[in-house]
């Protein structure tokens, strides 16, 4: 667990006069569950776009899965998976059709796709439902399925954007079990969220405020450092210093 899968050095991103990311420095280890927190507009999305090769940094060096994102964004994209709360799967396609589509995008051969998809659906216990439309599934199932699809091509990193907001507590637990499992298999999990209870599950979290990283440690250490009962209090202390 000592080689970093993501390494960010002095990352700066400016839009005109506005600095969205102000000298970010961090690294994420292989298999780590890394929480990336911040209020709306703190610069989370900008940073994640740079990490996933969608946008170029103004300054600094970002290496993801062994590739520099500024020079080899395509290589980076091949090696990451992505899942967001807003869009996960096509509602008007069946489970199987969705999986086949995303497998094809990432260049999996038909044989490999069939084998993995079958295994995955069996593990979730919904193989017999593979021809159902995704739109008919509950939110919880959609999210679990979306996560499975995001790691179908065995990426070294999977980016999750607010993966469990609005999901019932039991499904959320099942979801985190899947994340723990992926992590145990060596997939690095990068979670951005502004829901602090999701932060509690992570190995380490960073908290961004106004484009800067204000804290980076394990949830336990952060709670201790800020004498807080939970991550929500830690976050409020950092994001709302005037009111404290």
């Amino acid at each position, binding site marked *: 667990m000592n080689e970093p899968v993501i390494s960010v050095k002095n990352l700066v991103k400016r839009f005109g006069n506005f600095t969205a990311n102000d000298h970010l420095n961090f690294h994420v280890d292989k298999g780590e569950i890394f929480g990336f927190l911040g209020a709306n507009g703190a610069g989370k999305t900008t940073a994640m776009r740079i990490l996933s090769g969608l946008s170029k940094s103004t300054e600094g060096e970002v290496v993801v899965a062994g590739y520099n994102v500024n020079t080899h964004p395509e290589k980076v994209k091949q090696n990451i998976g992505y899942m967001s709360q807003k869009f996960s799967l096509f509602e008007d396609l069946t489970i199987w059709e969705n999986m086949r589509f995303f497998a094809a995008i990432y260049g999996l051969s038909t044989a490999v796709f069939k084998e993995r998809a079958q295994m995955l659906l069996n593990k979730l216990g919904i193989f017999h439902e593979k021809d159902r439309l995704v739109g008919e599934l509950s939110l919880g199932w959609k999210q679990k399925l979306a996560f499975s699809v995001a790691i179908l091509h065995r990426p070294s990193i999977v980016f999750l954007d607010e993966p469990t907001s609005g999901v019932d507590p039991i*499904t959320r637990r099942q979801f985190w079990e899947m994340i723990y499992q992926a992590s145990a298999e060596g997939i690095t999990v990068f979670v951005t969220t502004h829901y602090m209870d999701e932060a509690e599950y992570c190995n380490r979290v960073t908290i961004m405020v106004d484009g800067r990283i204000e804290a980076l440690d394990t949830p336990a250490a952060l709670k201790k450092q800020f004498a807080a009962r939970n991550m929500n209090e830690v976050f409020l202390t950092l994001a709302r210093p005037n009111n404290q």
Partner: protein
Amino acid sequence: MITIQNTSKKYGTVKAVDDVSIQVHEGELFGLLGPDGAGKTTLLRMVNSLILPDAGNIQLWGLDPVADYRQVRQIIGYMPGKFSLYTDLTIEENLNFFATVFGTTIAENYHLIKDIYQQIEPFKHRPAGKLSGGMKQKLALSCALIHKPKLLVLDEPTTGVDAVSRQEFWEMLQALKTKGITIIVSTPYMDEARLCDRVALMQDGQIHACDTPANVVAGFGKTILGVKMTNVYKGLTDLRVWKHTDNVYPCGEYLHFIATDSHVDVASVTQYLVSLGHQNIDIVNVNPDIEDCFIELTRTH
């Protein structure tokens, strides 16, 4: 006071709201907690007269949202789940519009919205579509309050809003409560339960519990151990197959472990895990929270 009795609503074969009976007291901040698809929105819309129940009876201070829907609509301030303001109108134009539509003026009820509106007043000429999530929320709340409603119905006001704005929003609700307005708020975030006077836990159209947050938690009745180890996933699968395990699930930093009987203690769990080669084992006593209650109640229902 609001009384909901044996109320049901079906969509096709799906029971969106299934025989729900709850009461909301005068001047109370009442939380309706449940995940997406639990039936919260349907229940709220039946209360505010926008949907007809299939069965049951709802009374708001003696008014029936089915028969007396005109009067009911007069006394309700409503914030739907989706952002419902006009994005192309400015803050001031939005507020003015809703004031006029409800037959009042901003000046008349300014005292009610003052604390909230003052925070966004400096931007009153900005179109609502260009506001941050927190500011939109404040404007929506101002608009819902402008006609001095007796009851405020808020459908998932904190969904999609960051932690800071959520905190501020709840502070605003606390302040409104002191002005005698009854508030019903729905939320999928269990941690917001502690901010309510009373809560109802809802899932699959049913209410699993309805009480003060403290009483709901007190009713949990089992001991939870928080368990941590280096390999969490293996620990989870190992504990799941243990014969003394009633339930185990991830919950933040720790796994929450509930034993089948009270003889199982920290020592025996540690022993079991050590025997399987786990390292850095850390076991603590955990006070159950609303989420634990929710999981337990869903399991037993």
